[in-house]
């Protein structure tokens, strides 16, 4: 029995589970304290089961939707735009890296600006993008695209640069044409780096698209969040959104990891 337990504790998921349990316990202890000291405890820290019940409740929080329905329908609005921006930004980032690799002059011109954009708090630009475009949906896409663009571009470029001199020499000896070098050497070599960029970009794109929502009351997850906070509807909608967005933020990172795992068989058998 003791040995079995030891085998169990050596598993990585076991200690993750332990920590999640600890967090749940801490949350619940906090919730008990809050429940006994606060006038409206659900504003500060409701019990987890209360949030779960709210998630499955059939009571309407808006005109015709339950809490979960409201969250999911606005999430669809928000995240679809965020996803579009993410894909767009990642694609542009990849092309950018490729162009910079192909042209030494363009690399020199653009590289300092690529570094600079990382230092700028792009989310701070969200309100002005909204002001310029005047359209919440376009703004969501643009901000998510900018945020996804630079991690993908810098990481992919680093991937292209990671190719050793010997590999170029080998291609040179084989008299390989430049396009062959790109398709057979450079792009496959940069792929893991590209995915690293995607993993950084995805949670940022989610954050961005929710944030842009809160700037204008036009529907969407962020907008729902603001309304719930202002008690225009049940506060549990707010808690559901908190958990939902945390879940989505973690999930997108995982999903990209799975995709990477799927397209890189050499990593599986190592």
């Amino acid at each position: 029995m003791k040995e079995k337990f030891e085998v169990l504790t050596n598993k990585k998921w076991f200690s993750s589970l332990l920590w999640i349990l600890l967090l749940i316990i801490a949350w619940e202890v906090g919730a008990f304290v809050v429940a006994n000291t606060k006038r409206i405890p659900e504003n500060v820290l409701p019990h987890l089961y209360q949030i779960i019940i709210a998630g499955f409740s059939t009571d309407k929080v808006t005109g015709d939707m339950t809490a979960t329905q409201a969250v999911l329908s606005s999430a669809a609005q928000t995240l679809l735009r965020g996803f579009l921006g993410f894909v767009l930004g990642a694609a542009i980032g990849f092309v950018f890296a490729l162009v910079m690799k192909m042209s030494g002059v363009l690399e020199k011109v653009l590289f300092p600006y690529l570094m600079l954009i990382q230092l700028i708090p792009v989310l701070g630009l969200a309100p002005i993008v909204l002001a310029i475009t005047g359209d919440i949906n376009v703004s969501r896409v643009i901000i998510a695209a900018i945020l996804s663009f630079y991690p993908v571009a810098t990481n992919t470029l680093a991937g292209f640069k990671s190719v050793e001199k010997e590999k170029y020499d080998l291609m040179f000896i084989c008299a390989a044409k430049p396009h062959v070098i790109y398709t057979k050497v450079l792009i496959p070599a940069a792929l893991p780096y590209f995915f690293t960029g995607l993993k950084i970009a995805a949670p940022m794109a989610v954050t961005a698209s929710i944030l842009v929502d809160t700037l204008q009351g036009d529907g969407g997850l962020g907008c729902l969040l603001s309304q719930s906070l202002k008690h225009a509807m049940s506060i549990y909608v707010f808690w559901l959104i908190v958990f939902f967005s945390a879940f989505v933020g973690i999930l997108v990172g995982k999903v990209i990891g799975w995709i990477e795992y799927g397209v890189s068989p050499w990593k599986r058998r190592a």
Partner: protein
Amino acid sequence: MSEVRDIEIKTRELGVTFQDNAGRDVTALTGVNLEIYKGEFITLLGPSGCGKTTLLRSIADLQKPTTGDVHIQGMTPKEVRLQQKFGFVFQQPVLFDWRTVKKNVELPMEIMGYSKGERSDRADEMLEMVGLKDFANHYPNQLSGGMQQRANIARAFGLDPDILLMDEPFSALDEFTKEKLHEDLLRIWRATNKTILFVTHNIQEGVFLSDRVCVLSPHPGRLSAIVDIDIERPRTLEVKESSYFNELVTKVRNSFEGGSV
């Protein structure tokens, strides 16, 4: 050697000068006159900084000579390279992580436009030759260093190149693996009759493998002696224990200019 043999590679007053970071000229190689016969196994031997790799790279068109020239089968290195007649084995097994061992061997053939079936057949043949048949569908990171270097050699032979250039291919391997690969290399060489240029800093290795050992000396890098290795072939590992082998090793060692290294 009495019979008349075809000269495959010929260098004339070959010299290479680099510029270091401070902008000063550094002579890596100067005045190399060398004739290499067709089907010969020749070793470029010397300590670090003697220009042996530079010489190899000049022949492979990876390095432009500053003075003199290289002729291979009456052509320039570039023409030979564009005809894809070179095979090159690096010190590190330059394998592509994302390709299986077999796909790695097939890569140069893909570039040359071999058909799929032909590629596959030849790759199988090469892997069989280096003893990696059972590992064809493994990925490089699943192989040991010795196996990776075998895959590397299989790839270089896969194209059926006229000239095989090997830049310290075994220097990172342990002694046991190295000896095994020495025997394998000689066997493959005999079977395929390639011209092999082999760079090393290991005297025993050079003497054991070659028909001739070219001794290079540093500061500035130059060809200081050529030692004929007339040990009978096929050679086995026992050769290394013979007194004649050791005599030749001593002869090579003494031919370094400036005494012992």
